[in-house]
Each structure stands twice: as C-alpha cells, then as structure tokens.
C-alpha cells in the first residue's frame, strides 16, 4: 500500500512536469507568435491551415511583449515564425539576433525598397498609415472642425479628449513618436509631445484601444493606424471618421520573419511564401490592410498611399533609436 | 513475592524546556514491580510525575534512562502502537466521527480478527459496561458517564497485558465519580487485568488500589497497600497527603527501655509501646490523625480551647487550639458523647496505640 502510493505520487509529478511539455511539441505543427489582433490572425492562420493542412499553434502577444518573450526564449526558441507587428519591432529583433534570413521567391518581384529588410531578415506583408480616429458625435455636437494637422491636436477644445498608447508597450505609438521626431526634429518633437500630453486623457497599453474608446465617446480623438481606425471603429458601427495630418504622417509595414533557431524552419518558410501569395494577400482587405502584392484586391474605403501625405519614414533609424527615444520619452513625459 | 509482570527499573525522564531554557526532571529513579492482576495507583499532587510515568509505560514518552519490562521483555524500544498496553485517556479521546461500535471495535479491526469475532467481543464488552443496544449511537449524543464507559470498553476489549488509566474520572461530578470507580474496580478484578492508575484524588486511590505509589516531585515517597500508607506513612509528605487534616507534633525520645519509648512533647512525656529503631535523643514526628485524638472536659494530656465546631451529623470536627497550634479533632457519634461549643476548654487525649512515629 505504501509503495503504491509513493509510486503514484512520483508518476504524477513526472507527468505534470514533462508530460505536458511533450504534448505541446507534436509533429507537423508550426508554432508562431503574432502581434496581430486575435480575430485578424485567425483569418489568415485558419486559411493557411486549410490550404496547406499544416496545423498552427499560435499566441497573440502585444508587440513589445512578443519581443521580450523571444528574447527570454532565445536559448530555446519555442516558435518558428513571428507574424505581424510593425517593422520597427522587427528591426529591433534583427539587432538582437533573434531572426533568421529568408528570401521568399513569392515576394521577390514586388518587395522593393524598405518593404523588407535589405538582408531579408524580415519581410513586409501589409502597409498602413498613422491617422486620427474622430468621434463624429463629439465634433457635431460641439461644432468643431476635424483635426487635419498635428498642431490641431494641441487645441484647448480637445483637453482630456485624446488618447493613444504608451510608446513603450505599443508599436503604433512608437511609430507616432518616431514620425514626429523625423518630422520636426528631436527637440521640437518632445516639446510638441509635452504640450500634447496635457490634452491626453490617458495612455493605453495597446495601440488600437483608443479607437474603440473614441467610438464609445469616452474620448474624442484616438491616434492609431488607419486600418485599426477602419476595422475597429467605422466598420464596427461606431461613429468614427478618420483624418490625417497634412504635415505628413508615418506608416508601418506589417512584418513577418523566421525566428532564429526555431523548431520548424521549413514550415515557417512555407508560411512566409503563403502570406505573400495573392491568395493570402486578398485576405488583407478583411482587416482593411493594404496588401503589398500588386495582384491582390483592396478593401473599399481603405487608404492607399496616394491618399495621404507620407513622410519619408526611416524604419531602420526608428528601429535603431527605439530604446533611446523611449527612455527619453519616459523621462520627459514621466509616465 | 510473586514474579513481577510489569517491572520498572531506574526510570528517569528529563525535559529540556524550550522557553525557560532549563532542564526539568519529571521522573527520577522510579523503581516498581507490579504483579499480574494487580491494580497499582500512582498518587500525588500535580506535577509529581505520575502522568509522565504512565505515558512512558504506554510509549508516549521516551525515558531518558531506565528500563521497562513487560512479562520479562524490555519494551523501551517498542513503539506505542505495538505495545500490549491500552490507555483510558483523561479526556476519553473518543473518535467523534464514529459511533460507539466503531470506536470500541477500532483496535480489534487493526488486529485483523474475523468480523464474527470482532462483533462478539465488542458486544460482550458493551454488555459488561452496560451499553448494550447503543452501538449505533454517535459519540456527540452521549453523557459524560456513558463516554467514560465507552473509553473503558475501547481499551479493555483488546485484552491488553496492562491497562493504563490517566485520571479517567476527573471530568465527572462527585456522585458519578464514586459510582464509576467502584465499577472500574469490579471489572478490573473480574477480568484480572494488570492496571496502572493515575490520580490526584486520594480517596479514589484508597478505594481502588491493591497498592499505592505516592509520588512527589518526580520521586517515590512510599509504596504500600492503602492500609500501610494510611496507618504507617513513612514520610511527612505521605502522612500529610493521605487522610484528612493530619496533626503533627514534634518530640524528642527521652528514654528507650524494654519495648517502650518515652517521647517528650512540650512539657509532657508520652509513652509508646514500641521502639522501632529509635534511640535516645532522636527527634520524632508524631502523626496524629483527627480520629486519634479524644476530648474530655475534665482531664487529658494537653489543654486547649475549641475554636471551630463543624457538625456533620455522624461526626463532629473540632478545631482546637493548644500550645499555639491548631489541632483537627474528629469525634464520632457525638450524640452519645455530647457536643462542645466554641470557646469551651477541653483536654486532648491521644490514642497512643495508633499514633505513628516518623524519624525526622
């Protein structure tokens, strides 16, 4: 009786500690982290599995946390693919030595310029621009003009009525910061943000939260990517209208990369090829993203590069100065 | 002397107290031989070591030094659950989540007897203690006396070599206590089980025991039958502890001659028809129990005055002050002799045949 009990106890321990782990690593499964919204990621991933019969196990993580997780797991990577998230994150990831290069034959024809990493450590698969999501009720009720410049945001009428994310938890918000710095010069950019800060109701951890908050009327203006403004705001039925700063705005390339030392690199490569194919790129419109593949269809009402004044956004520079700028932002803004 | 069944040799128990940071000797050089079927009581005030000794026999305390032998086998290293002893606990320690039957049958079930035999023995013992038909009753519904009997039955049903009693009656009211101690003694004698009984109540000890071990501060003061303890106490402690309000007088042996000794007490000399091994010049303690003093209004050894009169019907207890000392005097059958009153002058006469002498 005694021996049986001890045996059971030991078996239980062993099972718990190691059994479940072995369950996770099954055959022919692709493991990935994604920074895309869960509902969006599902669309692509389910289509991929349907097309290729490859099973995918994925976790959605906010962009910053995703990078942290990859860093923490660097000695023993748990995933093969990093799917989605602004390219700045991928630049940082490349710098940290977390990525493996792959030149996809599918993307080669149209991936020019800064749509991918020059050494193929990551590739873009969609594109979006920073804009303002405005609550139409607020503007109509108060008879105000919609903001069309960065300077407009500093107007006293918008006091405690703007929100966006912390630059250190959200790629969206960091892109805003990097854009402002490239637009105005570093000192002026921080001066600007100090003034903007007094109009900000509160900061969110996630980049797109401000859109729904604007939609609900908790605030009047949310600063986010155009696709989030459309996807989470207007198309959901919220009273949201988008606008863009005329001085120029920043944009993001949605990134995709192989994780260095990942458990199933071949499957990862298959995924990248698939993501750049017309079939996958057609799906981009569901989430109001601009596909990179010129043969793909575009969503109605989605922004094209030609609709908005874009600055010459230097992804590489933004990625390299990530830590420094964020640290400076935290010091100056104090949040 | 018959072969000892339970033998305790030089048993000592020392505790190291955590908070007082000192060593406490609870039991010191305890020696005792108990015959089969005997009921021996360990008697003494609280803290005298009687319970500790009992628990060492049962296996719940480990002796620091000394040996315990049961039926000629040294049992020091045998764990409590393997010793052939069973204890009746002061708090009864009945299992609250079981009924009477399960409580009593517990030990038998551990001995892997057949269901049939367990049932027979349990029913028998329940009959013996007067609880037949109550097998299914849960413990919480029992009265104090019933609980006591279940505890007794539970221990006895296993027919242990030695039964241990740890002040089992202290939680009962006076009348029940008297009934139960008679009951316990009867059963013990009927089943002839060797028993060690612990109590601080001397009346209990006197009525139950074959022999009494009087203990004080970890050591044995005297071992003897109730009569020996009472009539011939070997130390002042025993004389004082046993009996009601013992009177003590100090004296000096002034003459020892042909089977008699003369003892000077205050200004009088009292003659005793014995000598023991007293020598001239020895200081002696006279043990005069209240019933060994007689009162007279005319003549006697010492003169005194009545302080307090307690009339109890069959006897009267007087408190008499004489020579700056208070004496307790018990007079039986006062209706025959007459009753003294407070402030009466009386003379005290001593029953020299029964007064016991202890060398100081």
């Amino acid at each position, binding site marked *: 009786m005694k021996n049986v009990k001890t045996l059971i106890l030991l078996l239980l321990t062993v099972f718990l500690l190691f059994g479940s782990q072995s369950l996770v690593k099954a055959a022919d499964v692709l493991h990935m982290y994604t920074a895309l919204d869960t509902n969006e990621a599902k669309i692509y991933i389910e289509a991929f599995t349907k097309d290729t019969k490859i099973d995918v196990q994925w976790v959605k993580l906010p962009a910053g946390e995703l990078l942290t997780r990859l860093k923490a797991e660097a000695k023993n990577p748990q995933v093969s693919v990093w799917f989605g998230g602004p390219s700045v994150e991928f630049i940082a990831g490349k710098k940290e030595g977390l990525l493996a290069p792959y030149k996809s034959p599918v993307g080669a024809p149209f991936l020019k310029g800064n749509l991918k990493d020059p050494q193929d450590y990551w590739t873009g698969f969609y594109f979006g621009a920073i804009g303002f999501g405005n609550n139409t009720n607020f503007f109509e009720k108060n008879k105000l003009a919609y903001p069309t410049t960065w300077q407009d945001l500093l107007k006293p009428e918008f006091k405690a009525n703007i929100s966006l994310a912390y630059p250190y938890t959200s790629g969206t918000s960091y892109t805003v910061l990097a854009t402002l710095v490239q637009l105005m010069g570093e000192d002026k950019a921080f001066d600007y943000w100090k003034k903007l800060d007094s109009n900000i109701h*509160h900061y969110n951890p996630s980049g797109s939260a401000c859109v729904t908050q604007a939609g609900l009327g908790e605030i009047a203006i949310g600063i986010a990517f155009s696709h989030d403004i459309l996807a989470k705001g207007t198309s959901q039925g919220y009273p949201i209208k988008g606008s863009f700063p005329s001085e120029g705005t920043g944009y993001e390339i949605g990134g995709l990369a192989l994780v260095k030392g990942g458990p199933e690199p071949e499957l990862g490569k298959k995924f990248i090829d698939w993501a750049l194919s017309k079939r996958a790129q057609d799906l981009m419109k569901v989430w109001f993203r601009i596909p990179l593949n010129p043969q793909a269809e575009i969503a109605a009402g989605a922004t094209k590069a030609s609709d908005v004044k874009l600055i010459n956004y230097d992804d590489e520079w933004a990625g390299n100065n990530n830590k420094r700028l964020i640290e400076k932002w935290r010091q100056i803004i104090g949040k | 002397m018959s072969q000892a069944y339970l033998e305790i040799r030089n048993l000592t128990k020392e505790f190291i107290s955590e908070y007082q940071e000192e060593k406490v000797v609870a039991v010191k050089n305890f020696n005792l031989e108990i015959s089969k079927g005997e009921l021996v009581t360990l008697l003494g005030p609280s803290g005298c070591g009687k319970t500790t000794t009992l628990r060492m026999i049962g296996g719940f305390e480990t002796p620091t030094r000394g040996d315990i032998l049961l039926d000629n086998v040294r049992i020091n290293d045998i764990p409590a659950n393997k010793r052939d002893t069973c204890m009746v606990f002061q708090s009864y320690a009945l299992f609250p989540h079981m009924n009477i039957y399960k409580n009593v049958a517990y030990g038998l079930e551990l001995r892997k007897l057949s269901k049939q035999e367990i049932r027979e023995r349990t029913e028998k013992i329940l009959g013996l203690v007067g609880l037949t038909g109550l097998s299914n009753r849960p413990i919480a519904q029992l009265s104090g006396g019933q609980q006591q009997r279940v505890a007794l039955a539970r221990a006895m049903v296993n027919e242990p070599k030695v039964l241990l009693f740890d002040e089992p009656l202290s939680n009962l009211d006076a009348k029940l206590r008297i009934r139960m101690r008679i009951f316990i003694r009867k059963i013990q004698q009927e089943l002839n089980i060797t028993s060690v009984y612990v109590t601080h109540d001397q009346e209990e000890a006197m009525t139950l025991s074959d022999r009494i071990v009087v203990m004080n501060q970890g050591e044995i003061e005297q071992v003897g039958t109730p009569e020996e303890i009472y009539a011939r106490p070997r130390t002042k402690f025993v004389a004082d502890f046993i009996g009601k309000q013992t009177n003590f007088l100090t004296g000096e042996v002034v003459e020892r001659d042909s089977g008699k000794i003369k003892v000077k007490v205050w200004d009088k000399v009292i003659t005793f028809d014995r000598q023991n091994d007293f020598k001239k010049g020895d200081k002696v303690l006279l043990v005069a129990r209240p019933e060994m003093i007689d009162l007279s209004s005319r003549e006697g050894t010492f003169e005194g005055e009545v302080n307090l009169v307690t009339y109890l019907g069959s006897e009267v207890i007087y408190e008499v002050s004489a020579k700056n000392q208070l004496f307790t005097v018990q007079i039986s059958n006062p209706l025959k002799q007459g009753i003294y009153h407070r402030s009466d002058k009386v003379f005290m006469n001593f029953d020299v045949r029964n007064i016991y002498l202890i060398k100081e």
Partner: protein
Amino acid sequence: MTKSKRFVAYLKRIPSDIKKLFREPLLLIAIILVNLFLFLFIVLPLFKIFQLSFEDNGQFSVKIFYDLMSKSYNVQPLIHSLTLGVAVSILGTLIGFIFAYAVTRVDLPLKRFFNVMATFPIIAPPFMMSLSAILLFGKQGFVSKMILQNMIQFKIYGFYGLLVVETLTYFPTAYLTLYGVLQAIDPALEDAAMDLGASKGKIFRSITLPLATPGIASAILLVFSQSLADFGNPMILAGNYTILATQAYFTIVGMYNLKGGAALAILLLIPSLIAFCLQKYWVSRKSYVTVTGKPSATRIKMDSPLTKYSIFGLCLLFTGVIFLFYGMVIFGSFVKLWGANHTLTMDNYKHAFTVGWEYIKDTLILSSIATPIAGILAMIIAFLVVRKNFPGKRLMELVSLLTFAVPGTVVGIGYILAFNQPPLILTGTAAIIILLFIFRDIAVGVQTGIAELQQIDPSIEEASTDLGADSSFTFRKITLPLITPAFYSGLAFTFVKCMTAISAVIFVVSGKWNLITIAILGSVENSDLSQAAAFSVVIIVFILLALWLIQFLVNRLGGGRRIKFEKAEAL
C-alpha cells in the same frame, strides 16, 4: 541555558529526530518531496528575482535600484501604490468594521443577508468592480449618461476610481477578520461592564474597541497587501495614476527590461512582506481574545434607535452599492455593444461559448487539476507541521506561507525567470500555469489545516496509536476525516482563486493554454465591455457551481458543516 547552548541542544536532537524518521519511510519521503516542491516552486522563483536585480557583472550591486529610482516614472508608481494601499486599507477596514459590528452586536434584521453580501466579492473576479465602474460611471455609463444626462463627469480613471473599486473588492477581508475578532471577545466582559453601569457607547469605547484593536490592525495590514498586489483593477482603471504592479509588467513586457522589472517587483515585495510580518508576528501576538468564541444571542444588547437605524442604513447603503455594481455587470453582459448598441441579446454569451470556448475550457481544466493537488498538499504540510517533529519544520511552514505575502506580479516574474531555461523549461506549458495556481494558493489551505488540526485533541490520535495503528493508518482514518471540513474549505477557496487569477498568470500564458481572465482584460482593452461582462458572469457561475458541488460533497460525506471562508481569508 544561553542561546548557544540551546542551539547546541537542538542540534543534538537532530540525529535522534532523523533516526525516528527513518523508521517511517513514507513520512520521510513525504517530507523530502514537500521540501523539494516548496523549494523549486516558491523559493527558487523569488531567489531568481533577487539574483537578477542584485547582480551587476557578476557582483552584488544595488545599481539597478539607483537607476530605477532616479527616474520619476518609477518613483511615482511606488508612491501611488503605497498611497492607494493606505487609503484603501483604512476605508475598507472602516466599512468592514461597520458590517462586522452590525452583524455581531446590533439588533437588526437581514443579518444573514448582510453576511452574504459582505463576503460575496471574495468569490468574484477582483477586477469586476472596475468593469462595473466603467459601465456605471464612464462617459457611456448607466448613471452618468442615462440617469444624470452627463451633467456630472465622474473621474473614474485614476486614484478615486481605484479607491472605490478596490475598497469594494477588498473590504470583505476586513469584514471576515473583524467578524472573527468581535465574535471571540468573551461576552462576560461586556456583560460585566454593563453590570457596573456602563452605557452602550461606553462599553464600545472602553471594552469592545480596545479589545478589537489588534484585529483592526490585522485587517488594515491585510487589505493593504491586497491593494498593493492588485493588478486587474489598475490595468483597467488606473488611467494616468500609474501603480507599481502594472508598471513592473510594462517594464518587462514593453521595455524588454527583465532586470528593471525584477527590481520593481522587489520594490513591490518589500511593503507586502513588511505588512505580512507585522500582521503575523506582532499584531496576532497581541491578540487579547481566545480562539474558541461562541456566538451567543445574549451578546446583542439594546441600542438607541439612532444608532440602530444609522448602522442599518449604512449597511443597506453598502449592500445596495455592491448589488448595483454586480448587477450592472450582469445587465451589461446582455447588451450587444455597450456604448454603441444597447439592444439586449445573448450574443455575448454565444461568443463566450463558441469563440471563447477555448478560454473557458482551459481555465476550467487547469483550475480543476490544480485545486485538488493544492488541497492535498496543503493538508499534508499542515499535518507535518502540527503533528510531526523534524529539523526544518518551522522553515517549511514559513515557506508555504510565503506566497500569501508575495504579490502575484512578483511571483509571475519569478516563474518566467526560473523556468525558461534548462533543467526546468516550463514556459509555454500547462504545467507552469498549474504550478502557479497550486503554489500561489497553498498558503490558505495550510493555515486552515493547521488551525483545524490544532483544535483536535491530540489524545485522539494518541488513542489511535495506543490501539495499534501506525502513523499512516491514524492519518487516514482519524486525522483526515476530522480535518475534512477544513480541506473542503481550502478546496473551495483555491478553486475561486484559480478561476480569478490574473496578476501572476499573465506572465505565463501561452498559445496552447489561455485563461478567461486574460480574455476579459483583452475585451476591456478593446472597449468591448459587454463581452467582458459576459465572461465575468461566466466565471462567477462556474464558481458558484463548484461551491455548490463542494458543499454537496461535504454534506454527503457527513458532518454537514458549512464551508466557511472565515479562516481562509483572515490569516
């Protein structure tokens, strides 16, 4: 005997203690295994945090703390957390006291109802109050918009919002502590005071209150710790009032700064540990009351109508508020899209059980595995600590209680530090979540078990031994059945804690295993409040089902004792 001599005597006892252990091999294995688990899953993670923070280039250094503290964006959260903690603890204790006094000392109707309402928040996800606050007082809130027509803007994001929701969430802890304390005061004392001529007010001021003071201090410290460790509420409602627990999370997750996050975790840990030590070793020693308090009807005395009605009114008010908050969440769950589309619908529940089914399933599976293991382990530890003697016993007890004093954020960080490399790579598995569940909540089970065991007359177990049973038989047949009520209480509490866990597990969830609480936070972030509300209601329903099931089992197996959260919450 001097201290050194005493220690030497203790050391001398060790060989004989160990020898005795070898005679019971099962016992020895149990002790070794328990110690191993406690070390791996409680001590090691904490150690890793300290190691990471205090090490700089291989040497001991406090540099990271200077770095952190030189930045206002770290000092502020620290100050905010402490300030909020103090405010919540005082307010929460005050409310808890009013309830406790009302239930134990005043002649009022509806006592059972008040008792239930005052303890209800314990079984709900802690951040439900924040969700409700937004539903009620946000710009689209029920009160702000529909009742007050947006005339008043409530500042719910920030200090005041957090103060209200945390007070509502944690005052039950104070209530339970104070209830126990007030019940345990010997009624004869208050009777004597009255006999000598004291008025009700005088009795309160000179007898009841002074005797309850250690209990009040206890309650304040306990609520303070809970506020400090709160993660869910600040995630939702903090706004710009940054606090330490969420900042530690962002530092790791947003700034990729493991070391900084670990150091912040230590800053979070220190006040909690201090509060815990104060509560356990100083305040509870000064307790004037005995543990065996009997509730008696003679305790209730006549009050002046003014006192009676004001207290009754206050209790009704607070109960009303609690009802309002929870009711709002239930209502919100049936709304299609809060703030935009207020048609009533079951869509959110449909969504919860289809798209969200993975979350529900995972949470239930993981909680159901962890709960019995935690319960049994806790009972074993309690038994070892109370009934057996072996070297390191006190240490084992202390370690098993440690996680109660440690905020979940700290534990979570410790786990990712400790288990993301060989030999124990557990990040990403079910195991790490289950382990987190088990060792986070084991403290309560241990304490309850110890308290229950201490109330069992040891001579009962001696009697069993005397009658021939060995340790294992005695444990199974005698001890275990007698502590079963405590066991089930522990189970109930653990299950609740597993279902509502967030602050530690948020660091370790993975693709394969996800939790409802995290889904709720995600929904709130998307301003999908109705969805969040639906998930919250689902959690509560499952908890109630589980509690009912456990109570049913307790009744079935005899005893019929009601599960009590008394001892569970108030250590």
